[in-house]
């Protein structure tokens, strides 16, 4: 019943812990501030402590309870303030509680200490974290051991009682409190770890250390306890032996003395009544009167002169060894009592003799044992009555049959059954043995005298008190000492090893994350200093190699970058003679080599292909893939395919052997320089911005097709748009729109449009420059994440040749020459080219004036594709100068004529000469490359 109550009491703090643990997680309680939580928990657990006091189980004047578990649990599980608070309240309440006066001080103090202990363990040993069940058990046990010691020390005046109290309550209270705290730890850690896949963490050093230390200490603890127990048992048994022996010897002497005194008394009376002249009749009469077995008078010569036993008359005393002792009475000795011995005539009869010296000779009186006993019994009946051995031990005097003659007043037994067993066990007189006497296991020793058995009894409980006390005290002290030792080892290991290892690890973590400049500086002990030095040396060697390798890679990447960039057209303006368009592009790689690229080239004389593309990823693989894509696109474009087909074929080729799974987004357009029509295709690329008819830039939103190299068999749509002179297209990669400022904001498409519109109408180079400057200003200090590539094309339209119309007349020749001069200057034509053109003009115009009969002529001059063009249109008679007869240029000077030489010269000097007759007009077109011949 007491056990059940104890168990129930121990479970209450566990349930309360579980309740608060749950409340902290799932109920509005969790919203309280920390201070309030601690207050509520502290008061609740104080209430538990008070309840434990009130419902304690009285044992031997003390109260058995589970009070200390509450403040301990509060401190260990919920926090040090709750622990201290509940400990203080519980302890103070205990002081004023009416129950268990005997342990009032001890309980009160130990409850307060429990609160502080739980708080201290959590705060200083566990880093303010909840402790494991193992520590819970240890702390619970330690606190209760402290409690027990307090009980003993506060009642030091009566050690024995204090010890008895402790002995009866110690084990259940230590067990209940320890288990209660342990269970509280266990239920909270269980409910925490359930559900989430619990990974078994490796033990830390101090835990391992403690575990092994605990094993060793436990072993030592058990061994010393066994040793001390055995040693103390021997000691107390020996002490008991001595005590028993002393006591029974005393009693034996007392009995001996009593019987001696009795015999002497009788003998003295006989002597008084003995007449001077002793006769046989006197002796017999006296023997009868005093119930003596024998009365003999021995003469000075040592011979029996008269005796109640006539056969002894004349017996020489000296002839009997025992009787010879009495011869001393002939000398100085006055009285002598002899031990029992057989009578002379009846050797088997136990007889006791006393002798008194007479004026001459001596008187010898012998009594039978039975008589003596009868007389002595009355005397020793009370002898053992008030005797004690130790506190509770006793003396029992029995006769030869085991009947009690004298025993303790409080025990009325008349027969001691062990007596038989002791006899049958063959226990020697004077040797101690164990037996149950008066219902108590005791040490027993006996001795025999005068026909009595004197039995000494010492209860083992009493004999062993010192032993038990010392074993308990030792156990308590060891628990305390080891608890303190554990705490110290924990702190020491933490300070000397764990803390240093943590610092080394912290440094290593930084090194791992790439900071090779970190130095490990843990110099708390020689070992750690040496470890730090080794790590530092390793890191610095590593750093050296990395730096070297990085430098080598940098160099190679720099080469790769140069190769990559040199694959892109990078001379601007690329076509100085082409006035129909202007183009500018730029690529700025984030990595040493990037995945972006741009490209443009003329397809024939009147088509401009231009594109911007972005290969997934960057670095060397992307750059290699980019080179492949660029080459494929160019070769397909130059083969004359339409733009859709170029992408289809490129995609097909890139898909082959694309194990790395790379892909390319691309936007490519082909501008017809004559018509301004752009045919384009988009493979998953950002929409370009387009500026039309002097308006603002806007995005060209057409549905994109899938990326290149993403999947085989994709069809790419060919789209068209019409550009007017002055219109412009701007292509870019996502490195522009996704450039980030230090606040991680994107540059974005809106900002790009703004930036484009600021530079609207300017040259292609200025437009690109403005966008790049804006992106750079936006990004500020932040790193460039992606390649930034831009391309701008401006369509100027086909240059319309200038025209001069006039009536053919020789006088207007200067007018035509001026016209040509103006045009040539505008076209910045080289001198030699100009001269040739001027000659041609002179020849053809003068021909028309002289021979055509035309009344209208139109002269056009212009340049396209780097070719100077001069066209004549007249309404004269049809004349094809290409069919004119060649002059003979080998005649001697006198036969020479210059007729026909003019046309001939023109034909020889011009690169091209075309004639047609159309709508009643001769149309002659001369062309000459603007490039000066080498």
């Amino acid at each position, binding site marked *: 019943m007491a056990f059940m109550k104890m168990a129930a009491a121990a479970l209450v703090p566990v349930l309360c812990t579980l309740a608060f643990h749950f409340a902290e997680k799932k109920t509005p309680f969790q919203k309280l501030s920390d201070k309030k939580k601690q207050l509520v928990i502290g008061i609740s657990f104080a209430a538990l402590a008070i309840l434990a006091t009130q419902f304690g189980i009285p044992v031997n004047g003390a109260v058995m309870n589970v009070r200390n578990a509450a403040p301990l649990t509060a401190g260990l599980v919920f926090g040090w303030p709750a622990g201290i608070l509940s400990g203080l309240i519980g302890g103070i309440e205990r002081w004023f509680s009416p129950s268990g006066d005997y342990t009032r001080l001890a309980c009160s103090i130990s409850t307060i200490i429990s609160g502080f202990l739980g708080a201290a363990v959590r705060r200083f040993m566990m880093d303010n974290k909840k402790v494991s069940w193992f520590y819970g058990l240890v702390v619970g046990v330690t606190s209760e051991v402290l409690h027990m010691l307090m009980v003993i020390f506060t009642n030091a005046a009566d050690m024995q009682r204090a010890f008895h109290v402790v002995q009866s309550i110690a084990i259940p209270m230590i067990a209940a409190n320890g288990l209660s705290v342990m269970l509280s730890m266990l239920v909270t850690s269980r409910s925490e770890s359930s559900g989430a896949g619990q990974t078994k963490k490796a033990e830390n050093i101090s835990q391992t250390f403690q575990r092994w230390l605990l094993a060793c200490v436990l072993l030592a603890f058990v061994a010393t306890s066994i040793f001390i127990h055995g040693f103390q048992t021997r000691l107390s048994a020996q002490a008991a032996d001595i005590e028993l022996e002393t006591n029974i010897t005393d009693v034996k002497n007392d009995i001996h003395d009593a019987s001696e005194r009795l015999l002497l008394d009788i003998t003295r009376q006989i002597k008084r009544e003995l007449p001077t002249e002793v006769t046989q009749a006197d002796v017999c009469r006296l023997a009868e009167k005093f119930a003596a077995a024998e009365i003999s008078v021995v003469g000075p010569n040592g011979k029996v002169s008269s005796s109640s036993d006539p056969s002894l008359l004349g017996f020489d005393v000296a002839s009997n060894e025992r009787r010879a002792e009495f011869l001393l009475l002939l000398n100085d000795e006055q009285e002598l009592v002899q031990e029992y011995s057989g009578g002379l005539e009846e050797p088997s009869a136990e007889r006791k003799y006393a002798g008194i010296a007479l004026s001459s000779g001596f008187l010898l009186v012998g009594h039978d044992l039975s008589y003596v006993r009868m007389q002595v019994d009355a005397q020793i009946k009370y002898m053992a009555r008030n005797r004690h051995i130790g506190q509770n031990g006793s003396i029992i005097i029995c006769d030869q049959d085991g009947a009690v003659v004298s025993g303790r007043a409080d025990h009325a037994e008349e027969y001691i059954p062990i007596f038989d067993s002791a006899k049958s066990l063959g226990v020697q007189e004077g040797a101690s043995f164990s037996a149950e006497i008066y219902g108590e296991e005791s040490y027993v020793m006996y001795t025999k005298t005068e026909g009595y058995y004197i039995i000494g009894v010492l209860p083992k409980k009493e004999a062993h008190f010192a032993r038990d006390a010392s074993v308990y005290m030792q156990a308590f002290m060891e628990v305390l000492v080891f608890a303190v030792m554990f705490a110290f080892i924990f702190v020491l290991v933490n300070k000397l090893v764990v803390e240093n290892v943590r610092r080394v690890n912290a440094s290593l973590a930084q090194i791992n994350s790439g900071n090779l400049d970190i130095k490990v500086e843990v110099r708390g002990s020689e070992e750690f200093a040496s470890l730090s030095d080794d790590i530092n040396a390793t890191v610095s060697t590593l750093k050296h190699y990395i730096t070297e390798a990085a430098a080598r890679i940098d160099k190679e990447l720099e080469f790769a970058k140069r190769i990559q960039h040199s694959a892109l057209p990078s001379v601007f303006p690329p076509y100085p003679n082409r006035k129909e368009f202007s183009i500018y592009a730029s690529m700025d790689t984030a990595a040493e080599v990037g995945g972006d690229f741009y490209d443009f080239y003329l397809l024939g004389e009147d088509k401009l292909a231009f594109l911007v593309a972005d290969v997934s990823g960057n670095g060397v693989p992307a750059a290699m893939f980019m080179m492949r894509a660029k080459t494929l696109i160019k070769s397909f474009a130059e083969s004359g395919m339409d733009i859709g087909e170029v992408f289809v074929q490129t995609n097909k080729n890139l898909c082959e052997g694309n194990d790395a799974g790379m892909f390319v987004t691309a936007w490519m357009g082909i501008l017809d320089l004559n018509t301004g029509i752009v045919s384009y295709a988009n493979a998953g690329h950002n929409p370009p911005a387009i500026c039309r008819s002097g308006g603002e830039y806007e995005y060209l939103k057409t549905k994109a097709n899938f990326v290149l190299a993403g999947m085989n068999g994709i069809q790419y749509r060919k789209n068209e748009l019409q550009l007017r002179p002055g219109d412009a297209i701007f292509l870019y990669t996502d490195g522009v729109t996704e450039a980030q400022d230090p606040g991680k904001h994107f540059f974005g498409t809106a900002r790009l449009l703004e930036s484009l519109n600021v530079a609207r109408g300017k040259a292609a180079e200025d437009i690109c420059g403005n966008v790049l400057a804006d992106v750079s200003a936006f990004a500020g200090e932040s790193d460039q994440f992606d390649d930034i590539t831009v391309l701008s094309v401006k369509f100027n339209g086909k240059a319309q040749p200038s025209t001069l119309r006039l009536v053919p007349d*020789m006088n207007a*020749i*200067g007018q035509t*020459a001026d016209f040509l001069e103006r045009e040539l200057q505008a076209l910045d034509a080289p001198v*030699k080219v100009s*001269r*040739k053109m*001027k*000659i041609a003009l*002179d*020849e053809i*115009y*003068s021909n028309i004036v002289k021979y055509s009969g035309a009344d209208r002529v139109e002269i056009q001059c212009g340049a396209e594709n780097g070719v100077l063009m001069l066209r004549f249109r007249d309404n004269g008679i049809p004349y094809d100068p290409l069919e004119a007869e060649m*002059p003979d*240029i*080998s005649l*001697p*000077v*006198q036969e*020479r*004529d*210059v007729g026909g*030489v*003019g046309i*001939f*010269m023109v034909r*020889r*000097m011009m690169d091209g000469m075309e004639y047609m007759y159309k709508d009643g007009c001769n149309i002659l077109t001369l062309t000459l490359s603007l490039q000066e011949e080498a």
Partner: protein
Amino acid sequence: MTIEKNLNGKTLEIKLSGYLDSGTAPDLEAVLSETLAGLQSLVLDLEELEYVSSAGLRVILNAQKEMSAQGQMKLIHVNETIMEVFDITGFVDILTIE
């Protein structure tokens, strides 16, 4: 075109500048027809002359024909374009060019 004449006895040196085409050839022709008679030597300095068209060639050819009969004629400081014209037309064969 400007024509600078420099007569030194029977030697006439004419310096031409500008261009010699159908517009200017008659001017040179007029100058020559006045001065060629009785000349032993004619030097045409073409340093400042840009180009020559077939009209100019005709004047030069006529001058050459006339001078061949009574003395000699030479052209100096001929530029590339004019030289090319002379080349094309085979005039290099009949002219003395220094």
